[in-house]
């Protein structure tokens, strides 16, 4: 920036009687930078603006899905009489639309049980997505447990972790009854005390300080008020 040409700037003019000698050399009166420097900064600034005009929209386009929440979906899975208190019934329904079978997921549904201290008249929908890394767990009737085939995660009847690597209980789906049909809705996660929280991905802890270390994502639905 401070090559010889800069310092010579105006020196010739200064020799003339009607122009003052620039001081410091290269700067005219009232100027805070040389003209060369001013143009350099201006051109680099313009280039930066032009670059940002291309890069920022492209990055925003790629990042936008993080902040987009899809439409809430409810799907009827069968009449109320299909479900009992003491065991689960496996249902398959669509969680992600427009990708065919790949968008389907499995949930285990039962009526809420007073014996387990649950509010009566509700339906419990436990997701089969393992809370370790997302493998599909299976409800084993004889043991009354959910067991994951991948890394040996085991959950009790209510979906609480009792063994293996999972970090929290199995996720749940919201349920409601419409026209005598049980409907399942958005997914939510639960803490180890089975308190509903916003849906988390597998492998992420819930409750306490973990709610801040694994913050809820804007793309998930608020949990049902318990």
């Amino acid at each position: 920036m401070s090559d010889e040409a800069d310092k010579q700037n105006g020196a010739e003019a200064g020799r003339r009687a009607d122009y003052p000698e620039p001081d410091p050399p290269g700067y005219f009166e009232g100027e805070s930078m040389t003209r060369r420097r001013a143009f350099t900064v201006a051109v680099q600034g313009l280039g930066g603006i032009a670059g940002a005009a291309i890069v920022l929209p492209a990055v925003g386009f790629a990042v936008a899905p993080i902040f987009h929440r899809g439409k809430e979906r409810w799907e009827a899975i069968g009449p109320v009489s299909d479900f009992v208190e003491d065991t689960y019934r496996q249902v398959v329904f669509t969680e992600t639309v427009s990708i065919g079978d790949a968008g389907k997921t499995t949930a285990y549904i039962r009526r809420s049980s007073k014996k387990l201290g649950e509010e009566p008249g509700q339906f419990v929908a436990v997701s089969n997505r393992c809370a370790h890394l997302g493998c599909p767990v299976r409800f084993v009737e004889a043991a009354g447990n959910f067991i994951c085939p991948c890394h040996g995660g085991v959950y009790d009847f209510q979906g609480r972790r009792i063994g293996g690597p999972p970090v929290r209980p199995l996720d749940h789906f919201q349920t409601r009854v419409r026209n005598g049909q049980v409907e399942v809705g958005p997914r939510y996660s639960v803490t180890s005390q089975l308190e509903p929280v916003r849906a988390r991905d597998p492998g992420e802890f819930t409750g306490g300080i973990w709610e801040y270390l694994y913050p809820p994502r804007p793309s998930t639905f608020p949990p049902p008020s318990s």
Partner: protein
Amino acid sequence: MKLDSLIPAPLRKPAKPGEGNGAKGAAPTDLKSSPPERPSDAQRLKERAVDAPVDVLAWVDQRTAASGFLTGMLYRKVPKGTNWFYTLGSATLVAFVSQALTGVFLAMFYTPSATQAYASIAHINNDVFLGQFVHGMHKWGSSVMVILVFLHMGRTFFFGAYKYPRELNWVIGVVLLILTMTMAFTGYLLPFDQRSYWASIVGININGTGPVIGPYLSDFLRAGPELGATTLSRFYAIHMLLVPGAIIALIGAHLYLVVKLGTTAPPWMKANKPKAATPVSPLNASSNGDAG
């Protein structure tokens, strides 16, 4: 005709000092003997034909001055003790070129859509001529490339070739390692069968276990809260466009630094000792406790 004559003079291996014709060159032995025979037209045509490729290369060279760079790169000195372990980098490069070529041809038949991807892969494997072979090359080649990258990294580490002044090349290499893993990860989803679907779910969820930014990162990879149609096109774009470009650019930088800095000798090679015996200084002699 020797093959050597096809290589333009600037690209030939430079003669070692004291060898070759040089400026003094072997002078014609007998200048005054019988004048050379006038070549026939056919002979002249043949000579022109032989010279043509040389002329073309010379034409390019005159305008690009590429020969200096090429001779410098191709005939650069390598240290004593250079062995087969030093070929792992080139092997990785060959694996990458193979992946790029087979990938381009696979892309001609592949459909990156959640409903058609699996069918298009089945079409490649079952119907397209040599389709299963090219698909297999790409599939197994990806494992080969990952293995070679790690072997190359191990060679660099155990030979101490990451030390000054080659640290930047190590850093570039680590970025290339990450990009290679990204390629392997994003490519795994593309067949969109059960195995790739669940493997990608597990992979994305491992990503999500990173504190604070992990959840957002996995949402970014999936383009939403669940793995869906956009996830596939996103992985396809990363696999096809984003990462290959970055890998090519970084391989260029990697190779430039290799040529610029040269390679290291294996650690078991001793540096050449100066031939003249170093004079023993009085300081050394006394500290040794030797008689003197």
